[in-house]
């Protein structure tokens, strides 16, 4: 069977499983819809959290980013896993004991204010939309690259699938499909990684193979890669290029942002009790760590393979995958010195077309739409070449997508990668859409605008909100606004500088008042938001403040939030006794007050 058929079979099979699960796990009540009935086993919740968390970006792009960034890529590895320690130790069990449906619920009740609730709802919706647009695009991209379906049709297919199980099953449907999606995506990520590790280093465990030696020459893989990279002018792979302060700030912003992301926190509301919230955070990080410790190994192997294959190789002698991926625009070559061979070195090979926010290759074609080719058979480009020696443009996504082909793995492995990428994108999209629909139906309408809405009415409203959110997300997927890639920094910075301090102080400091928390959140968001907007949109060439990139500024926003919240709280009268009582109850097991913990309650 060829790659196309395998891909159709594997993608079709996994989609059938997701739909089957959705029908089996329909939601009957708001509690089912928002928190899956509150009785999800820890292991299942751990898997669902892992799938929820690991998006198209983790699956498709992360290994590629690391493979180009070398040691600096560890900001993502540590930043996106270390947050789970904060979650398990400082957030999840307490929020679970609080026993409501959402993060804005906690903020609203703990800070006895609908204003605080409203600020939290707006942050939750903004963060989730920023994120979900990228996921829908990811679905479209996987479809177009592996099945040669139009990107937009791919987005629509993805929308229909998500719509089906999110609207029908709510959190319950999403949770159990995410369990299936985790299994698909981790299998799809690990199989090529194990194959390649075995091929290169003779060790089937990628985490060990990465530190191993080449089977043929006995040279250490990392030493060889350092050497190759330095020769080509990239600098040693295992050495950093970013400043220590910048790496520190980005890691901290990603960690605290992770711990403050509403679609991650809400997963811990679905388990039976606080102790189960702790256990499922452990399972979640364990399941995430399998992918996150493999990704740097994939990065090393893929980079080594790439450098060894393309450097000074004549175009006519390149393996077939090069031309295949050239057609998808992920790789492009311009023969600057006219020797017919590829010279790959540091710096961009081609200029960005005027008006494009980001580099995109434009291939030339004749009037009939046939691609124009140069004398060696390469696709010709409209982008003017730069004046450095580098002749090769490579999109970082190719490191995962083309990895099986570069390593000459069987056709079914390539189909598996497509199914895995779709699983990663769909699971994250569904989780985010649920946060949006919950925020609208529960926090905005039920809690602030129409408190006497019946449960049935709320459930209908939640389903409609999920439907509308899918359509809006799909629209952004079809017509991605140019700023999408740039606002991802926002999602983490915003979560770190708004929710994270408000929740931590809400649990650990009884003295924190409404005025303190609200002013802290507002100052944190405004500071972080204006820094990011200034350096990302207004003045992109300005030297950042202390060399801190916009991705890392959330750390400062968070510190400012903490300081403001504490100072303002001291200056305002203490919170009312019932709030102090609420905090006491969140800190101890329910049973210590002679109460049964029967899961979240609506009213």
């Amino acid at each position, binding site marked *: 069977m060829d790659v196309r058929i395998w891909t159709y079979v594997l993608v079709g099979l996994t989609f059938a499983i997701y739909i089957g699960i959705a029908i089996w796990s329909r939601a009957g009540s708001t509690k089912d819809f928002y928190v899956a009935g509150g009785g999800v086993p820890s292991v299942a919740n751990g898997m669902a959290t892992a799938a929820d968390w690991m998006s198209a970006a983790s699956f498709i792009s992360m290994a590629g980013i690391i493979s180009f960034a070398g*040691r600096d890529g560890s900001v993502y590895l540590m930043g996106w896993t270390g947050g789970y320690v904060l979650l398990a*130790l400082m957030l999840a069990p307490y929020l679970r004991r609080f026993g409501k449906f959402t993060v804005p619920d906690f903020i609203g009740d703990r800070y006895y204010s609908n204003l605080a609730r409203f600020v939290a709802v707006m942050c939750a919706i903004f963060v989730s939309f920023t994120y979900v647009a990228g996921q829908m695009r990811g679905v479209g991209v996987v479809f177009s690259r592996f099945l040669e379906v139009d990107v937009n049709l791919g987005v629509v297919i993805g929308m229909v699938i998500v719509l089906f199980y999110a609207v029908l099953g709510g959190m319950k449907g999403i949770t159990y499909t995410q369990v299936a999606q985790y299994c698909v995506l981790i299998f799809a990520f690990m199989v090529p990684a194990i194959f390649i590790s075995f091929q290169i280093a003779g060790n089937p465990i990628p985490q060990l193979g990465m530190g191993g030696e080449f089977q043929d020459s006995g040279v250490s893989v990392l030493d060889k890669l350092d050497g190759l990279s330095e020769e080509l002018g990239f600098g040693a792979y295992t050495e950093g290029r970013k400043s220590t302060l910048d790496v520190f700030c980005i890691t901290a912003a990603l960690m605290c942002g992770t711990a403050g992301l509403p679609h991650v926190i809400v997963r811990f509301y679905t388990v039976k009790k606080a102790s189960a919230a*702790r256990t499922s955070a452990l399972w979640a990080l364990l399941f995430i760590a399998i992918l996150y410790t493999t990704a740097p190994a994939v990065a090393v192997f893929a980079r080594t393979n790439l450098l060894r294959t393309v450097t000074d190789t004549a175009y006519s002698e390149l393996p077939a995958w090069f031309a295949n991926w050239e057609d998808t625009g992920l790789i492009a070559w311009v023969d600057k010195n006219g020797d017919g061979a590829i010279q790959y070195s540091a710096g961009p090979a081609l200029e960005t077309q005027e008006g494009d926010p980001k580099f995109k290759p434009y291939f030339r074609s004749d009037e009939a739409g046939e691609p124009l080719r140069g004398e060696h058979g390469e696709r010709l480009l409209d982008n003017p070449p730069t004046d450095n020696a580098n002749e090769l443009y490579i999109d970082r996504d190719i490191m995962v997508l083309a990895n099986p082909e570069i390593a000459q793995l069987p056709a079914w492995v390539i189909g598996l990668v497509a199914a895995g990428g779709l699983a990663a994108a769909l699971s994250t999209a569904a989780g985010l859409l649920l946060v949006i629909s919950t925020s609208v139906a529960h926090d905005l309408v039920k809690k602030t605008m129409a408190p006497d809405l019946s449960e049935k009415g709320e459930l209908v409203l939640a389903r409609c909100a999920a439907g509308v959110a899918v359509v809006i997300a799909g629209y952004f997927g079809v017509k991605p606004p140019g700023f999408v890639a740039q606002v991802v920094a926002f999602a983490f910075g915003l979560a770190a500088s708004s929710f994270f301090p408000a929740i931590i102080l809400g649990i650990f400091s009884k003295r924190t008042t409404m005025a303190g928390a609200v002013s802290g959140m507002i100052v944190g968001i405004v500071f972080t938001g204006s820094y990011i907007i200034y350096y990302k949109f207004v003045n992109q060439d300005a030297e950042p403040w202390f060399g801190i990139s916009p991705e890392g500024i959330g750390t400062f926003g968070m510190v400012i939030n903490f300081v403001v919240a504490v100072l303002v709280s001291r200056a305002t009268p203490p919170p009312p006794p019932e709030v102090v009582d609420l905090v006491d109850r969140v800190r101890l*097991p*329910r*049973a210590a007050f002679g109460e049964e913990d029967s899961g979240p309650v609506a009213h």
Partner: protein
Amino acid sequence: MDKPNLPDAAAKASYWRHNLGWLAGLLVIWFLVSYGCGILWVDQLDKIRIPGTGFKLGFWFAQQGSIYVFVLLIAVYVKVMNGLDRKLLGGRAD
């Protein structure tokens, strides 16, 4: 209202104090392995190689080791808190 087997105020305060103590200890380790070994001292640690492998120690902490330690930290916390829960509730789990 008064149930004979409920923990008293002192037991509750002690539970919370122990919780905070463990939190502080585990978070110090969390900070040391990630921000310490993986970022601040990475260049010094890179002078050491993990015997038998191609890994420089700082690089290994940044891309592998810190993640393994994170998993361990949560595992320890789960175990400790389950113990504290049982102690507070007179042998019953939460």
